[in-house]
């Protein structure tokens, strides 16, 4: 057990896998200097520039090459800097990485972990602040992970590295410095964590808003069960549905734009399967503004979650 940051935890997970399997490589811009968030700190010095590979600013080819590496037997970890830039490689993610195993009839697989840091990031404006997890959850062939704590960033990155299929791994840019205890706990894709038990309402969320949700739950006048979904695809239906059957009220919260967000999938499933009352809270359908008051309009806070809980 050690106290470490969200960024350092992911770095430790990657270091372990690089040491264990010579087929693991890292591919992306600026990884040799540790990555812009220091989530690759020291790895090139330790494992060499042949395995921790600095690349041109060629997002499409970073992902496309990773697919080729994977089909040739490597296990690439892809760095996209922010999810917004991964849109330059959306074709390679959706049409190549996600499809190769299926359309080639299982002849090849793409055990690629693509790191697409997500979310608001202190005044980064409309092209560096988006939360696009629903796009990827929509695509058959992809696993989608969104850890909220240093422990999960260690355990789930390990699980993602062992997955064998393409994983869209979405770390939140405002969580890099978050400190927490990290143990060797094994991560499991598709397993949510109940962070707080409650009787009156189920609050499902992931990534940064997990922390806002916990704060809101503590202040709420009713007893709120808080579930960190952790993996969006596959998502832990059993944990969410059994909680909703107990509380009969569901609030799903995410930082992504509410319209067409993954919260809609969860709310619809809970309504279909349990008849519980459902409500969603996500960002308004506006780009993220630069100026603090504008950015704050797109921020899902504990206060906004409390208001939503009161309306349940």
């Amino acid at each position: 057990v050690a106290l470490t940051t969200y960024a350092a935890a992911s770095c430790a997970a990657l270091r372990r896998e690089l040491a264990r399997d010579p087929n693991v490589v890292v591919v992306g811009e600026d990884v040799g200097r540790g990555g812009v968030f220091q989530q690759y700190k020291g790895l090139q010095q330790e494992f060499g520039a042949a395995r921790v590979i600095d690349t041109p600013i060629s997002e499409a080819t970073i992902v496309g090459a990773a697919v080729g590496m994977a089909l040739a037997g490597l296990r690439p970890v892809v760095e996209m800097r922010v999810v917004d830039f991964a849109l330059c490689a959306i074709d390679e993610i959706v049409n190549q990485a996600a499809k190769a195993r299926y359309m080639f009839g299982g002849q090849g697989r793409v055990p690629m972990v693509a790191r697409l840091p997500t979310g608001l990031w202190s005044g980064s404006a409309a092209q560096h602040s988006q939360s696009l997890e629903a796009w990827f959850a929509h695509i058959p062939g992809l696993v989608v992970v969104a850890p909220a704590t240093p422990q999960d960033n260690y355990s789930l990155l390990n699980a993602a590295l062992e997955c064998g299929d393409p994983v869209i791994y979405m770390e939140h840019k405002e969580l890099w410095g978050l400190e927490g205890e990290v143990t060797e706990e094994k991560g499991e894709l598709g397993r949510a964590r109940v962070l707080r038990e409650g009787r009156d309402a189920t609050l499902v969320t992931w990534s940064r808003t997990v922390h806002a949700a916990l704060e809101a739950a503590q202040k709420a006048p009713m007893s709120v069960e808080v579930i960190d979904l952790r993996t969006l695809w596959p998502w832990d239906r059993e944990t969410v549905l059994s909680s909703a059957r107990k509380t009969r009220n569901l609030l799903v919260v995410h930082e992504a734009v509410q319209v067409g967000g993954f919260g809609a999938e969860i709310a619809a499933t809970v309504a279909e399967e349990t008849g519980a009352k459902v409500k969603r809270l996500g960002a308004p359908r506006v780009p993220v503004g630069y100026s603090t008051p504008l950015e704050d309009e797109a921020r899902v806070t504990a206060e906004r979650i409390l208001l939503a809980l009161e309306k349940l």
Partner: protein
Amino acid sequence: MPTERDVALYRTMARIRAFENAAEEASRGSVAAFGASLSRSNVRGPLHLSTGQEAVPAGVCIHLEKTDFLTSTHRGHGHTLAKGASMERMMCELFGRASGTNRGKGGSMHIADFSVGMLGANGVVADGMPIAVGAAHAVKIRGEKRIVACFFGDGAINRGPFLEALNWAAVHRLRVLFVCEDNRWSATTPTDAMTAGEGALARARAIGVPGEAVDGNDVFAVDGAAGELLAKIRKGDGPQFLHAITYRFKGHVSVDAAAYRDKREVARALENDPLKIAEGRLASATVKRILEEAQAEVARAVAAAEAAPWPAPGEAYEDVQDAGSGRWR
């Protein structure tokens, strides 16, 4: 006197021609497009024929070992056959059968045979290029001697991955032979009309990938040029570029009659048939025998494909992903 190599090159071309003709025949009414209406056919969906372009895969792939890698395009039957895939399993794939190379999941546009290093045709123009570069990067990391042959069309040079992949291969000095199989047409648009500057080879050279242009209808010329470029790659000179100029005999897809093309242009191209050119070096008895053998082989492939089992519907859920494969709810 024709050499064994001449005969081998011609045989590859004859097998591709026979395959394309049979696939075309089996695809009548395969898709409602270009004014054609849909009817029941063994080959479904868009079928992109490489008829007329046979000399390019034949002349390049004669240099490749089974362990070398190849990436291809939506017009990829020739590359797949020339790399050594089984004609019967390919035809089964086009017919959507369980015994196909891809178990019926890919069809013509995604045909692949990893057992011979053929890492897939591709439904997106230029998208095979980054994949080829990645495979070559894996080769480098592992210190292997494999070559990666990356086939793409003239239309691909106007997409971003062309620049990205060539630059990446040059920066990392990867063992890639880029082969621009230039059939002059981007779907129904003449590529020249949509391409500024000096074209494919000049662009490659500007990015730092040297190469040469060759008559892509002369299989012996393609063989010679590919051999020289591959020798440079094997020597450690980094990626090389082969611009092979050929012509697409058929439309963009099999149901496209390509009436938008100048009749004289097409007539000239048909005169310049790569098989006819190669026949100049071969005894007529040899030509006859090879064509008959190719015909017989493709007839067996079609018969086998017609008789082959369909995939079970449950196969739709296999090989999606281990964690969270979908199902009806």
